[in-house]
């Protein structure tokens, strides 16, 4: 119950944040820009609109999760609003989970907004509603949920600027972790290969949530891959949130 109260208040706080609308504006601009790019393209113009549109949703969604997520907990501590909250019958982990779900709800609404703009743009070009896009957008949402957990984790012990940098690093590393796999194949067996293998297992693999190419080019997406990616996202999110709770429950608020 208290998680729900905190989550709804966080949602209220986030949707009254100007930065969210600024990002939404640029996301919409970027999606609409794909239409301009399509003019300049030789070949299948629909693919450009789909490609740029989905990439915009993914990028601006990640920026929303990072920029708002990293401020959520630190702002409560810096503005000392946490003093009155913790004095109420509220468990620390309920507070943290409330913040998390509040931002997830905000991202869901924002993602829905961007999706409507994107599908509408596509509809006026192809005169069909491209429901297949929703599969890619769903996995983008799962990725954003994970990034939100990471942003909240860093903000439990760091400043908003550092947390943003760490979360952005997580996002970038997560999308390029697959290149370690290529490197692994070229390194001979030995301690270096073992160390790299451990690193590869620990690093997030955010490319698991990227089925944009398959969706845009009409390639089949295996149902098992879809579910495995979703499960991977949920387990990784739970792990990161667990770490955040462990840090937050013993933290002194000076």
């Amino acid at each position: 119950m208290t998680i729900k109260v905190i989550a709804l208040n966080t949602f209220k706080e986030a949707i009254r944040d100007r930065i969210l609308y600024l990002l939404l504006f640029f996301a919409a601009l970027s999606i609409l820009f794909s239409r301009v790019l399509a003019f300049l393209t030789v070949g299948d113009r629909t693919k450009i609109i789909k490609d740029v549109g989905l990439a915009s949703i993914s990028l601006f969604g990640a920026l929303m999760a990072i920029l708002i997520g990293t401020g959520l907990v630190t702002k409560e501590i810096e503005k000392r609003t946490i003093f009155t909250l913790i004095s109420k019958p509220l468990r620390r982990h309920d507070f943290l989970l409330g913040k998390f779900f509040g931002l997830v709800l905000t991202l869901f609404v924002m993602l829905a907004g961007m999706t409507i703009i994107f599908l509408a743009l596509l509809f006026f070009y192809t005169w069909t509603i491209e429901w297949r896009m929703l599969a890619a957008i769903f996995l983008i949402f799962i990725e954003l949920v994970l990034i939100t957990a990471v942003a909240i984790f860093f903000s439990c012990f760091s400043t908003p600027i550092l947390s943003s940098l760490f979360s952005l690093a997580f996002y970038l590393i997560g999308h390029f972790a697959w290149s370690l796999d290529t490197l692994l194949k070229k390194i001979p067996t030995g301690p270096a290969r073992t160390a790299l293998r451990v690193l590869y297992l620990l690093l997030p693999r955010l490319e698991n949530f990227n089925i944009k190419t398959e969706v845009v080019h009409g390639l089949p997406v295996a149902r098992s891959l879809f579910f495995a990616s979703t499960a991977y996202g949920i387990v990784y999110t739970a792990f990161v949130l667990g770490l955040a709770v462990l840090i937050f429950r013993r933290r002194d608020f000076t």
Partner: protein
Amino acid sequence: MTTVLALENVRKTFKTGFIPKSKEILKGISFTVGEGEIFGYLGPNGAGKTSTIKCVLGLLFPDSGTIQIFGRPHLDLGAKKKLGFLPENPYFYDYLTAAEFLDFYAQLFGIAKPVRRERIGALLVRVGMDKAAGLQLRKFSRGMLQRIGLAQALINEPSFVILDEPLGGLDPIGRKEIRDIILRLRDEGKTVVLSSHILQDIEMICDRVAIIVAGRILSQGRLSDLISEKVLFTEVTISGLGAEEIAGLGESVSAQAGSILLKIYEEKNVQAVLDLVRKKNGRIQSLIPRTQTLEDLFVDMVKST
């Protein structure tokens, strides 16, 4: 009397600086607060008042010692349900209106909607903020924030209220109103812990006090037990006499517009001054025997450490 709050040998150390250095800010704090009393927690800035309160509320984890609220461990949610707290320099969600803000805190206690609505209305009237119910907190002055903060502390109708510097930043009328609210809380049978460095307020409303200096409680007890009833000196303001005529009877503090303010330490000299005024046809404008005040006690203690 039932014990509402009990602290036993609470210690807390902070590590500060780039190369962490330990600094003990609470050095074995022990005191108890009984049901229905207004307990003043006094100390200069940086003495450890707010840190003690933060330990009680679970914002800081003490290194050692025990804290109990209503006989339960202080982190117990059941104990917190009966607790209200107003922080020092309250900062709240400035994007919420006063009514939304109180509703948010009321929901944390699981209070039903119709009860919430009724209670918020009554509380806003009680703290004199009923006209600002629809105003966002970012438009509030410091005094208004203090009042809405007090309303938030009372939203669950607590039987125990902790107020950290509740009278700071208020004008004289605001201070009187908040003092009256605190006194009314005691009349309703609630227990109040009040931390402050404004001694007159503590003296006016507190039943018992504890004085903390540099992380240690130096004195605690009933105000009447701590402060001596003995007359320290008498302040006499007279006119119609020359300064040279009363020389040696007391310490002349000020002399203006024909009036002299004398500080007389010996009682026999008070009588001598009165006789002299009568003899010389002078006038006694005022005669005030000064007993020890909380301020005297406080200043002596801070100086002695």
